[in-house]
């Protein structure tokens, strides 16, 4: 399949994209939003293209979102999970991919527990590779859907103040958000226990708040990361209860903010840990809009990597 000069062969992360490329991805996502609102949610844009969703880690939202995007563009989508495939027999990542490629596929959407796995794959196969999350590195389509959701709400990204809260150390969502937001001219801050923030993260051009109250006072939007429960066993924090007390986003803390603060969360949520239910379901939450936008963003990514002309995205809806 030909590749778009505008985006290159693969989408591996937001770090290597230019501002113009991110802008293009967000703009091309716009016309694709409408397809999912139709009663017949399908256009023939990617008819005949074969896309493999290669998921080495558990995923519900991201895998389904990609699958909907692929199916609504009429691509043939195949799911491969690590359990029940040759991966569980010890086949290497590259052998798995080469075997898929020998069956003549066009694109691979890959999620893998190791940072760098998507790039490793992209350098070794001809097909377009889309990173659906690699270890603690990047999750570029999540970053893009977060940007799109912020832009929908604020009508701009430049100058916006966004604080990413929680376990940044282990979060690929955080890294994609930091790059995407900074390239689009937003101000980025982080807030969480220092044991869950990477050392030297300030060198990535972000501000660090020690207290969630300070972050709330500063921010236009909070992107609240999932606290992975195994972190407590890992000794990074003493207890979930204390985490909720000190770093949890609660209505009580938000009510003291000088302005309305937009609430985002990449899911899956731990209600009562990093976010309280009345915040997650509250009037400023756009958590489900993020999920809706995810499908449109992934359609745009598939369309552009398949060589689609950005100018024809509106017409491509068919």
């Amino acid at each position, binding site marked *: 399949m030909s590749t778009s000069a505008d985006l290159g062969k693969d989408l591996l992360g937001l770090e290597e994209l230019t501002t113009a490329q991110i802008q293009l991805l967000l703009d091309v996502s716009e016309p694709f939003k409408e397809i999912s609102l139709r009663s017949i949610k399908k256009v023939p844009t990617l008819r005949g293209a074969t896309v493999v969703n290669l998921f080495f880690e558990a995923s519900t939202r991201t895998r389904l979102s990609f699958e909907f995007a692929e199916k609504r563009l009429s691509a043939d989508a195949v799911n491969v999970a690590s359990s029940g495939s040759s991966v569980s027999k010890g086949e290497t990542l590259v052998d798995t991919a080469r075997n898929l490629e020998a069956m003549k596929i066009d694109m691979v959407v890959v999620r893998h527990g190791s940072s760098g796995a998507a790039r490793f794959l992209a350098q070794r196969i001809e097909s377009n590779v889309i990173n659906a999350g690699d270890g603690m590195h990047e999750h570029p389509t999540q970053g893009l859907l977060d940007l799109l959701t912020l832009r929908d709400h604020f009508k701009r990204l430049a100058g916006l103040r966004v604080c990413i809260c929680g376990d940044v150390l282990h979060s690929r969502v955080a890294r994609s958000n930091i790059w995407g937001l900074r390239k689009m001219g937003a101000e980025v801050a982080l807030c969480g226990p220092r044991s869950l923030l*990477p*050392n030297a*993260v300030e060198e990535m051009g972000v501000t660090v708040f020690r207290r969630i109250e300070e972050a709330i006072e500063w921010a236009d939007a909070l992107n609240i990361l999932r606290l992975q429960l195994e972190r407590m066993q890992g000794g990074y924090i003493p207890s979930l209860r204390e985490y909720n007390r000190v770093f949890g986003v609660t209505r009580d803390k938000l009510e003291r903010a000088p302005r309305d603060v937009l609430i985002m969360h990449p899911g899956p949520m731990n209600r009562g840990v990093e976010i309280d239910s009345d915040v997650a379901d509250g009037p400023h939450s756009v958590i489900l809009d993020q999920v809706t936008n995810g499908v449109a963003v992934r359609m745009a990514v598939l369309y552009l990597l398949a060589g689609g002309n950005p100018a024809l995205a509106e017409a491509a809806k068919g």
Partner: protein
Amino acid sequence: MPHLLLRRGRIVDPSSNLDVVGDVLVTDGIIAHVGAPLGDVRRDGDLVEIDCTGQVVSPGFVDVHCHLREPGREDVETITTGARAAAAGGFTAVCAMPNTDPVTDNQAAVGFIIRQAQRAAAARVYPIGAISVGQRGEALAEFGEMIGAGAVAVSDDGKPVASAQLMRTALEYARTFEIPVADHCEEPTLAAGGAMNEGVVSARLGLKGIPDEAEEIMVIRDILLARRTGGHVHLCHMSTKGSVELIRWGK
């Protein structure tokens, strides 16, 4: 055996404080001349003459820290391939670390390496024995037996000696045999799961970093234990500025 004449090389030999352009003559396997250019050399038997213009001629190098992987990982390296690679690169002697499978922690295992090296007939191979049985960090391996079989040092390389008490005992016990105790300096709880140096690059790449302190904590521990015991400690693969400063202080 053919005689060998190396012409016009840059002869570097730090042990004799030599750095000149000249000739080296080897007759019957013995170095007969080093230094000033020789005129016509006539010998009975073969004489191989090599033009070394622009090349460095030096004594063989010694690599005190290599992994020959045999026994256990012959798919990666064998004593033969390692000894040949060493010779091809100018190394005439290498020390083989004991983190093989099974671990080189007894005289029979040391003897095996010596015999394989003799068969390889390339660079000389000096085995290093393990500090602890199975490199498990619990009981001392039999240093004396291993030295008797040809080992030249002890190390649990591949793993740190996590227990300060074991390291202390190893340094004390090694004094009898006058051998160095080589430590892989990595504080295991700080280094666990790490893939690279900790810093902004590890933050960017989403890889678990290893802080400098993981190395430096073990460096200072070993220096202090060497001072206490009078043992000879060898600190492997130093990589941080702080370690260098600590070693300077220790010396």
